[in-house]
């Protein structure tokens, strides 16, 4: 061991310390950057006297993958929760105060008063007014649902174009990594960027990654469709510009394969795109079906039976776009809730006579024109409680009264909200937990870096002192020689 070797060791030590300091300062600069993975300089002794510090990036592949899955699940669930909240408020009102169920209750109450004093025209008009509120509730509910579906469709289109953009960005970063790795360049920053992109993609769609040679990464969706392999695969979605009750939304295609439909309020959807498709198709359309059935129930509860054989039924207080025919019995007429309206012959605002509700609008039931004739009114009020047959949210026929069916609609939506909110809590806890665990493994602790910096400071001054000592020793040696 000679002095010159010692000198070169001290020199390389200074160099390594400087390099380590730059790592510490980079770590500190990114202490609060969620997409940054902590770097550490690993110092290894190779040959005697020469040390090489390599810089590594903290990663945990398993935890990262778990975090991606949790993020997808939570994004989907929170999309469902928010969507259901919006649907519930826009159709049923705050605390279900303007739900068809509550409005029908008010109509029945008004009928009750009117039947007690059938000669009172004001009560007749207030009953028609209550009926108008029901019609408005159904019409506006339909409109709200279809607006909701249109907006969801627009958001899906935006998300799909975001996804395509993210995949294009991913290709650039992935190419950099592959090229850099092959050329031996530092690709750590690109790795950070790639992980950040993966997180963003997983918010939209559930993914898993497959690592390949030279740092190349392939992305497949949870159902096994390739999303990225050397080049991004195209995600295709055609938005429908305006929805009506009969419109059927388009599917999202990844590489030509349709995205699977998700089910359940504790949704099995992952990623916001699948959840938005589920909201658009399952919940919005399911609610529309129930509103349509309520509208059909109303038209038939207030229908008038022809006193002359063959005793056919004709719509009474509530009519739809073909006023003199009844909607098909026992099956859904698509969009009926948007078509239902008040009979112009009864509605005072359209020049009708509200008292016709008592006497019959299509046929004269009150032939002698008695002021307190209330047979029809009592029958209408009872009809709302009489059992009927409706198509339920699942498509099966259920035997319920109109009032019971309308409350079941409220129950259906609120059940979904409750389940979704409960699931959101679990899934958000999972995201928090995995994010925290991942952050603990891969992010920076400022105190630790500070402590490390102190160590480096000491090491630097020690090496510097070493240089000085060796320098003096060499001077001494040279003085002896001179």
């Amino acid at each position, binding site marked *: 061991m000679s002095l010159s070797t010692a000198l070169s060791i001290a020199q390389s030590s200074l160099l390594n310390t400087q390099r380590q300091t730059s790592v510490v300062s980079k770590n500190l600069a990114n202490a609060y950057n969620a997409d940054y993975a902590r770097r550490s300089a690993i110092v290894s002794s190779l040959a005697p006297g020469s040390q090489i510090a390599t810089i590594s990036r903290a990663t945990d592949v398993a935890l990262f993958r778990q975090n991606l899955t949790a993020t997808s699940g939570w994004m989907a669930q929170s999309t469902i929760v928010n969507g259901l909240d919006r649907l519930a408020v826009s159709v049923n009102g705050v605390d279900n105060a303007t739900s068809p169920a509550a409005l029908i209750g008010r109509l*029945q*109450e008004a009928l009750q008063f009117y039947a*007690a004093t059938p000669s009172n025209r004001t009560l007749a008009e207030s009953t028609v007014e209550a009926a108008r509120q029901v019609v408005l509730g159904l019409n506006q509910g339909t409109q709200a649902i279809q607006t909701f579906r249109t907006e969801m469709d627009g958001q899906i289109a935006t998300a799909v174009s975001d996804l395509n953009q993210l995949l294009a960005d991913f290709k650039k970063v992935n190419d950099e990594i592959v090229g850099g790795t092959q050329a031996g360049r530092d690709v750590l920053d690109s790795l950070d960027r790639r992980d950040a992109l993966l997180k963003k993609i997983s918010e939209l769609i559930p993914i898993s990654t497959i690592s390949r040679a030279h740092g190349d990464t392939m992305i497949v969706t949870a159902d096994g469709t390739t999303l990225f392999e050397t080049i991004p695969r195209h995600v295709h979605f055609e938005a429908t510009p305006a929805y009506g009750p009969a419109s059927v939304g388009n599917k999202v295609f990844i590489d030509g394969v349709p995205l699977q439909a998700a089910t359940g309020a504790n949704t099995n959807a992952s990623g916001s795109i699948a959840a938005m498709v589920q909201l658009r198709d399952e919940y919005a359309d399911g609610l529309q079906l129930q509103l349509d059935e309520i509208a059909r129930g109303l038209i038939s509860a207030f229908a008038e039976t022809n006193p002359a054989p063959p005793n056919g039924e004709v719509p009474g207080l509530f009519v739809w776009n073909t006023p003199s025919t009844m909607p098909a019995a026992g099956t859904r007429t698509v969009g009926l809730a948007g078509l239902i309206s008040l009979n112009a012959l009864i509605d005072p605002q359209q020049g009708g006579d509200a008292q016709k509700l008592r006497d019959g609008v299509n046929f004269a039931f009150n032939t002698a024109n*008695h002021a307190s004739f*209330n*047979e029809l009114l009592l029958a209408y009020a009872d009809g709302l409680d009489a059992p009927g047959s409706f198509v339920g949210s699942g498509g099966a026929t259920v035997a319920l009264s109109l009032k019971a069916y309308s409350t079941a609609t409220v129950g259906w939506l*609120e059940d979904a909200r*409750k389940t979704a909110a409960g699931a959101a809590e679990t899934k958000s806890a999972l995201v928090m937990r995995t994010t925290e665990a991942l952050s603990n493994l891969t992010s920076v602790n400022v105190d630790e870096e500070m402590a490390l910096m102190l160590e480096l400071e000491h090491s630097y001054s020690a090496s510097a002192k070493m240089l000085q000592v060796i320098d003096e020793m060499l001077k001494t040696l040279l003085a002896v020689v001179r």
Partner: protein
Amino acid sequence: MKVSFVSSQAITQAMRYQTARLQSDLVKATKELGTLRVADAGLALGARTGISVSLHREIDRLKGLIDSNKLAATRLETTQVGLKELTEAAGDLLANYSTALTDAVDPTIIQQQAQKMLATMSSVLNSNLNGENIYAGINTDVKPLNDFLDPASPNRVAFDTAFSAHFGFAPNDPAAAGITTAQMDAFLAAVEPQFLGAGWQGDWSQATDQQITSRITLTETAQTSVSANIPGFRKLAMAAATVAATFGGEMSKEGRIAMIERGVELLGEAISDLANQQGYTGVTQQRLERANERLSMQIDLFSGSIQDLEGVDEYEVASRVTGLRTQIEISYSLTSSMRQLSLLNYLS
């Protein structure tokens, strides 16, 4: 690899997340404390929200029924008063008729009594409540009883025509002095259908036999009015109208006696019919009262169910609010002391 490593970011994130959760819980608890109902009934009840909506609706409907029952009860009370008034008047008239049978009473006094009876009848049977003629059956916008004392009224015209047709002269014709008991009995039998038969609804009454039907509970209906067409009113009208129209100065004594005898018979039957009707009406009133009691009980029961579903325990919520506030304060002070806990503060 460190044994237990925590990143600075995880520390701040965790604090932030916890504080946000506590704050949103506090918002909910405060709302619950204000309304004493769960903050979001839909989220709390899920599928059972339908039950809560239908309970609220049923309560509104039951309250509506109680209100409409009040209306029917008032109608029945008025009817009851009217029936009582007519029964009393019939009793008075019966006493007068009985006197007339035994003693010599001035016929015009009897005639006036009979006319007074008819006037009482029109005033009672044509009484109006809330814009409804309560004795009109369901034809409530029309006064049910025609005024017999008005010479142009159809019932008076029909009666006079029948008299003239039967005897060939008017009641105040001097020829009336020759009417025998048998002739009068024959006339009374002939004119009877005008009162007790089909003639009543044509000439006397605009009321319908059908009475007002009211829904008094969710499942029960009741007849809540009395029609002017019941037999009691008809008999009363006949007993009074025959006397009122023909008891003038020219009528023979035999004719008068025959009329009074028939009148006494009819009045007796009328009083018993009216008493029966009072009984029926009383039963309906009682049914209404019971129905209201049942409705109130149902409302109480349903309100209790709603309270069970949506209500919150105020003490529990109050202590929850206090607890949350304490927790949030702790969380704030922890955050601030954690911020000071940094190596930076000790390096110079």
